[in-house]
């Protein structure tokens, strides 16, 4: 009887969660993140690919992969990886399970719901933002043992920037090998620079130089006394392409060294947020908008510069807009790259961890990585993890002209560490954004707003 009641209660919980989730889960535009998204190998790649596994024994079994279904490209990319792996290993069956979510946080919530309902995938596509969430809940299998026993892993690791692996580290373990990533850079509209008589920015620009440049790019183009073209903007719905590059270059972070406490009211964060608020107050930047709106404003010449990873490139080039380039964020007290990665984590529910490792390894194979470069008119939305592959991008004629800065940034500069993503990343990011909204709207002074944020984050990170 007790068992029957327990089953009933569990069923009730799952149904109510599903109803709650379905009722609330509207189709907001997916927010990009610091991380990469899955690559789609060309149709022929599977047949050309060498064996994925280090072992010579034929692989057999089945795998189910949960992935973030952020749009049609997600399904195509994940199915292509599954198909490619099955073509290489005829004894293996790979199925993919789309998991909805308005952003990474929503995806993790729905993934957790999926797991709670008893459906336990073998692997889950994940980003650096979700590593602590998966690890602290005992869901992810570290891959150290596989790396140690894989003779080819040394060469592979040497071909990956340490910061990318670091963003997938938890308690000294590597939780997965990422297969794509993004770092934050400044996009600029070349025509607007030329129209303003400004030279294109160089990597050694400072905050002061940036501010002067942005001011010169701010214009009232129709003479009605109101600004029509802004120098710079940043997104309101994410922290990676939002405030983090500024916080990092002020030599700060939103969390302490072991991600056990918030540092949102530290002098570096105050300095970064004050700088950005100053851009709004001086009319150089509009109020922050969701990233999708910024894409439109940038393409129509209403904003001259904004921050993002590689993913905006695909949107711009697909729309035939190519008169732009990228540059590193300006240097403040220091320069630190803000980067995050994504890959296929092996879950503790995996029936055959060795098989799952073989698939994870396959996603970092040269053929899959090469496909991640994309084409000149359709670049992929994340950077290949392998340096040797990423280095081919500019030579392949794929914009932007300064595309080498993507990998160069993480190779030549220190990365923001620790990766500022506590286990409750979704709640943490939403809280940061909620308080920043009030600060940037001018309804709360910077110091008071950050003090309130610090107080709330302390509760969230300390939970």
């Amino acid at each position, binding site marked *: 009887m007790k068992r029957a009641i327990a089953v009933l209660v569990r069923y009730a919980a799952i149904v109510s969660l599903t109803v*709650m989730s379905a009722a609330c889960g509207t189709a907001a535009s997916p927010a990009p993140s610091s991380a990469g998204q899955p690559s789609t190998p060309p149709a022929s790649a599977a047949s050309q690919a060498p064996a994925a596994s280090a072992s010579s024994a034929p692989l057999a079994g089945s795998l189910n992969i949960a992935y973030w279904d952020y749009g049609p490209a997600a399904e195509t990319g994940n199915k292509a990886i599954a198909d490619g792996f099955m073509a290489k290993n005829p004894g293996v069956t790979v199925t993919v399970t789309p998991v909805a979510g308005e952003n990474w946080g929503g995806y993790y919530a729905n993934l957790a719901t999926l797991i709670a309902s008893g459906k336990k995938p073998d692997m889950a596509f994940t980003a650096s933002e979700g590593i602590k969430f998966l690890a602290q809940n005992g869901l992810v299998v570290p891959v150290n043992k596989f790396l140690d026993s894989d003779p080819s892993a040394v060469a592979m690791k040497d071909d990956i920037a340490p910061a990318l692996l670091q963003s997938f580290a938890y308690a000294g373990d590597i939780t997965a090998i990422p297969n794509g990533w993004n770092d934050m850079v400044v996009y600029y509209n070349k025509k607007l620079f030329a129209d303003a008589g400004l030279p294109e920015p160089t990597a050694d620009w400072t905050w002061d130089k940036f501010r002067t440049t942005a001011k010169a790019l701010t214009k009232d183009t129709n003479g009605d006394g109101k600004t029509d073209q802004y120098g710079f903007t940043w997104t309101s719905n994410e922290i990676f392409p939002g405030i983090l590059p500024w916080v990092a270059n002020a030599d700060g972070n939103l969390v302490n060294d072991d991600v056990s406490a918030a540092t949102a009211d530290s002098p570096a964060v105050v300095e970064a947020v004050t700088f950005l608020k100053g851009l709004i107050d001086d009319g150089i930047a509009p109020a922050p908008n*969701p990233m999708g709106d910024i894409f439109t404003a940038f393409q129509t010449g*209403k904003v001259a510069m904004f921050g993002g990873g590689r993913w905006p490139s695909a949107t711009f080039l697909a729309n035939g807009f190519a008169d732009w380039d990228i540059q590193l964020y300006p240097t403040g007290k220091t320069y630190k790259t803000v980067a995050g990665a994504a890959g296929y984590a092996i879950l503790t529910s995996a029936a055959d961890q060795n098989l799952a490792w073989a698939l994870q390894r396959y996603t970092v194979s040269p053929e899959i990585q090469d496909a991640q470069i994309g084409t000149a008119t359709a670049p992929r939305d994340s950077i290949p993890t392998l340096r040797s592959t990423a280095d081919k991008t500019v030579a392949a004629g794929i914009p932007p002209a300064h595309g080498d800065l993507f990998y160069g940034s993480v190779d030549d500069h220190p990365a923001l560490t620790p990766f500022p993503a506590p286990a409750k990343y979704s709640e943490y990011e939403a809280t940061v954004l909620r308080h920043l909204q009030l600060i940037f709207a001018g309804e709360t002074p910077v110091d008071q707003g950050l003090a309130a944020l610090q107080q709330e984050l302390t509760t969230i990170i300390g939970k």
Partner: protein
Amino acid sequence: MGFLSPSAVSFVLFVVVPTVGVLVLSLFQWNLLSAGRFVGLDNFERLLTDQRLRNVYGSTTYMALAILAINVGVGLLLAVLLETRMPRWLRGVFRLSYLFPFVVSASAVALIWRFLLNKDFGVVNFWISQLGLDRTDWLGSSAWTPISIIIVASWKTMGFSILVYIAGLRAIPNEYREAAVVDGAGAWARFRHVTLPLLSPTVLFLVVINTISAFQLFAEPRVLTQGGPGDASRSIVEYVYDTAFQSFDLGYASAVALTLMVLLIGLTTLQFVVSRRWMHYT
């Protein structure tokens, strides 16, 4: 009984069981992945000290009452106007115009409005600027964001109220109005003393339905403002969703959801009780 069984089964599966599930969950601390821990009434105690919950209920009530008033009041006005003499094709155009937003996805509608209401790049502020006025921060200031949500949500849902009102107006026998005309009643007197009383069951229906749906506001604030700035335009359903699926605090989210359920049951009961004073049946 046999006829009832399909709906009875779905009612039990999709209403009774989830409600019981939420009730049970509210007594636990559970993050979806670990084993839940029974905490008794702790989640309900927390309701009393949650300052954000009060703020969110404040903003939700403000937005919900405004949407309710617009839907019931302006909806009635527009329905009456639509029933006045006009070419048939024009009436069709108006009806379609009002109903169209209702059948379109709330998220899609909100996305379009987000572009229209953008402070710096939006069409609405462009025209406001043409009039020589300052740009309004529709989606960025605590004063204006709830108003933007009210405008968008009312625009989206008013078509339904208009449709129901039209049905109600047409159900009123013409003889009553003709009798009033014979008695010398003017247009306003006919509306005030004949149409409105006979329309009162329709009004009650719309008040109840619109109250429930307005308090369940979600897509518009989610897409337009993400509930901000701060919690200025956050709805209670957003708060429940965020608590459950951002904070992974299913127990507390369930407790908050129950407060909304109790509130709506209370409001609906109150509306039925009060309606006895002004309800007229033919």
